């Protein structure tokens, strides 16, 4: 009895162990049927001799969705290689035609006519036609706050197979920018894919870019492969525009959320590109075969909840603007004077069209006495100011907020730090009763009209004059008109204080010299034209 019993138990346990292994399919089924996976990965002709065919690229954050019209910032690293829009920015942020061949603007500036390139293929073999453009862009519009603000009720319509029309109710000068900027991702997908999409996104990821999606393992990696039928434009490559040639057969975007792991992997040779923190910098600075690059990154702004009890009153906003020491906040955020710059404008100086210095006397005032005075005038009696922030997204939001907290407390303002995870933060930010001040990093748009915090849904800016000036800005057509309108808007913004600009930050990255052809725009790397030597 004993032996039999013993053996049967051991057998039972062994069997269950095997069953567990059998049940678990760690190999995984491929998710995200991409429709274009008739080709096994990398079956195209082998790479030229001394070039590697595969690149592994680390991503610092998860990709919640690959739908280009959703969740804009987080998936751009990947989607800009898969999808394309009608236009793209060059290195100077000038729009250059991409899927469009050219466009016409009517005399009154209200009607855009886009002429599409012919013979452009989607990853599923279908040719790009107007119906795809209108379907995609109308969807894009309905899902993007910025686009809705710009386009209003207008829709894209089909003129003929290769012509699309957009009729606006009033002239706007930011349409082409919006269609270009990677931030907005006005990507073109096939009509059928767009129509089959649900509220949670498209079900297939078909674009026109030089790489096509092969496999997406959520939380692990995104695998794209060279699209052999890619139709490149002929203009020289600049920024995200121009010629795109895929020298790589396969790119794996690995999701590695731990910065130390990313860096160790770079050192170990798994990756040839990595973001570099201040702490890691000395390790790559002298390293042979490695170049350290400094890239302009996000800017930092303080946004007021203009419906909150205190900050609906302009005097309180002015008080905060007065005490603000931008250098201190920026230093606390990036830890090194090399990694930030002061900038009183809501746009970057590199963006010559839209850069303005109007109102800069209100920037970086560092005036605690003035602030205390204003507080007194406003009748401050110790109410608590809630600073909404999160420790996620790399920790920069938190770092900036905590320095601000110190500055506020120094003039006697009672503050409360409200730290949340990202999901809760999103929810609270939409609730006018939940916060007073929010300090965040923002990806710089190409025109002021696209600034999030000027938008009523963000920080609850409801000011008639602001709206009016913004409208004038987008209606301006000549460079002089633009300059006047822009100065006026920025000047007013420095008075109205929907938000307070703090400064611009840089990020650093390290690249191995054997990885060539990598360009970035607004911090996003363009992997077309990239070569990796063996």
């Amino acid at each position: 009895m004993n032996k039999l019993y013993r053996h049967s138990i051991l057998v039972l346990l062994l069997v269950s162990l095997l069953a567990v292994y059998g049940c678990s399919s760690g190999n995984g089924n491929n998710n995200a049927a991409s429709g274009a996976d008739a080709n096994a990965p990398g079956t195209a002709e082998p790479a030229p001799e001394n070039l590697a065919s595969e690149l592994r690229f680390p991503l610092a954050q998860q990709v919640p969705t690959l739908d280009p019209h959703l969740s804009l910032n987080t998936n751009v690293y990947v989607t800009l290689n898969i999808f394309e829009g009608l236009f793209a920015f060059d290195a100077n942020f000038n729009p250059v035609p991409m899927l469009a061949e050219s466009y016409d603007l009517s005399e009154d500036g209200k009607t855009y006519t886009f002429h599409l390139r012919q013979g452009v293929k989607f990853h599923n073999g279908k040719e790009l036609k107007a119906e795809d453009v209108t379907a995609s862009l109308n969807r894009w519009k309905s899902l993007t706050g910025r686009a809705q603000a710009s386009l209003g009720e207008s829709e894209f319509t089909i003129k003929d197979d290769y012509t699309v029309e957009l009729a606006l109710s009033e002239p706007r000068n930011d349409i082409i920018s919006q269609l270009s900027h990677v931030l907005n991702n006005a990507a073109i997908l096939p009509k059928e894919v767009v129509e089959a999409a649900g509220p949670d996104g498209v079900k297939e990821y078909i674009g026109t870019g030089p790489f096509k999606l092969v496999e997406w393992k959520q939380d692990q990696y995104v695998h794209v492969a060279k699209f052999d039928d890619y139709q490149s434009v002929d203009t020289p490559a600049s920024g995200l525009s121009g010629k795109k040639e895929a020298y790589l057969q396969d790119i794996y975007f690995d999701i590695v959320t731990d910065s130390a792991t990313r860096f160790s992997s770079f050192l170990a040779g798994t990756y040839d590109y990595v973001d570099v923190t201040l702490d890691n910098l000395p390790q790559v600075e002298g390293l042979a075969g490695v170049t350290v690059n400094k890239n302009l990154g996000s800017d930092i702004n303080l946004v007021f909840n203009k419906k909150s009890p205190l900050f609906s009153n302009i005097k309180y906003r002015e008080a905060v603007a007065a005490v603000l020491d931008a250098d201190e906040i920026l230093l606390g955020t990036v830890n090194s004077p090399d990694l930030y710059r002061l900038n009183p404008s809501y746009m970057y100086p590199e963006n010559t069209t839209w850069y303005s210095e109007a109102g800069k006397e209100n920037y970086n005032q560092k005036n605690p006495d003035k602030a205390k005075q204003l507080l007194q005038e406003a009748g401050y009696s110790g109410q608590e100011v809630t600073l909404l922030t999160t420790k996620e997204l790399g920790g920069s939001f938190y770092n900036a907020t905590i320095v601000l907290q110190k500055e506020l407390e120094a003039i006697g303002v009672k503050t409360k730090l409200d730290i949340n995870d990202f999901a809760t933060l999103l929810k609270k930010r939409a609730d006018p009763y939940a916060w007073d001040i929010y300090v965040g990093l923002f990806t710089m748009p190409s025109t002021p009209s696209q600034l999030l915090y000027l938008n009523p849904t963000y920080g609850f800016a409801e000011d008639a004059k602001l709206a009016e000036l913004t409208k004038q800005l987008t209606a301006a057509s000549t460079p002089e008109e633009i300059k006047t309108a822009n100065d006026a808007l920025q000047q007013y913004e420095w008075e109205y204080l929907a938000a307070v600009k703090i400064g611009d930050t840089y990020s650093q990255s390290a690249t191995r010299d054997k990885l060539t052809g990598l360009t970035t725009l607004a911090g996003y790397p363009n992997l077309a034209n990239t070569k990796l030597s063996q």
Partner: protein
Amino acid sequence: MAFYITRRLLAMIPVLFVLSVIVFLIIYLIPGDPAAVMLGDGASPETIEALREQMGLNLPLLPQYLRWIGHTLQGELGDSFFMRQPVRTALAEHLGPTFSLALLAELIAIVIAVPLGVRAASRRGELADKALTGFSLFGITVPGFVLSMFTVLLFSVQLKWLPVSGYKPLSDGLITHLKYLILPALSLGIVQAALLARVTRSSMLEVLNEGFVKTALAKGVSEQGIVYRHVLRNALLPILTVIGGSFGALLAGAAVIESIFNIPGMGQLLVNSVQRRDYAVIQGVILFVAFAYVMVNLAVDLLCTIVDPRVRLK
């Protein structure tokens, strides 16, 4: 025996039920929702609302719970919002890595801890005993991520023997599979070993006081024979229990280690799902973990009956 097993499995049901209610309540209370997370920063409120409708997030509490319970009982755990696959599939895919990791970590722990504990018990007060105390305190206090940092620096960056992070399934070959798992398993295993060594030692010491040890001595059994043939087997019961408990805990996923080493296991799945508010997955993982825990305990109990004939199935 079959009867016993069935009874144990049935006893699990009320536990799972209680858990499911707790989980559901907690999730209901947490602010934030997956729609906003998926659509991101610049999305308009209308878009978010439309998605919420589709996800069924606007239903009141009880109907949501009942709907979920109903599906679960049919084996339908629902679909993950973010992974675009059924929860069942997500669980299955993430089970393998965690299971391998837990198994390897536990093996490492056993291989280190049991001999160390046995030696320390039989040479009480001497070097081996002191070494055990030192080691176990080290293992308990050094945080996992610090340990992993050093091992990665040494083995991956300096020596380039092992990869820094990632995971390759068993189907890619046993050696490859192990290469990716060994560093995280080491970080986990050493901590487990610390605890296990102490339990081994104290269990051995207790048994060493038993009468039959004297009998064995009087029979002329060598010290080695006494320790390994007589004492160890008697000391196994508490050791096995601890192993079972720690293995169960590992199955819940060592979230921190998995995130450092990028292993797509249960821990990572759980943390990501909570951050994204992927409700169906959260619930699925919790239920699964509880189930696994009960099963591991059952296995340990069965093993105990083999080890100690006095223990009977009740």
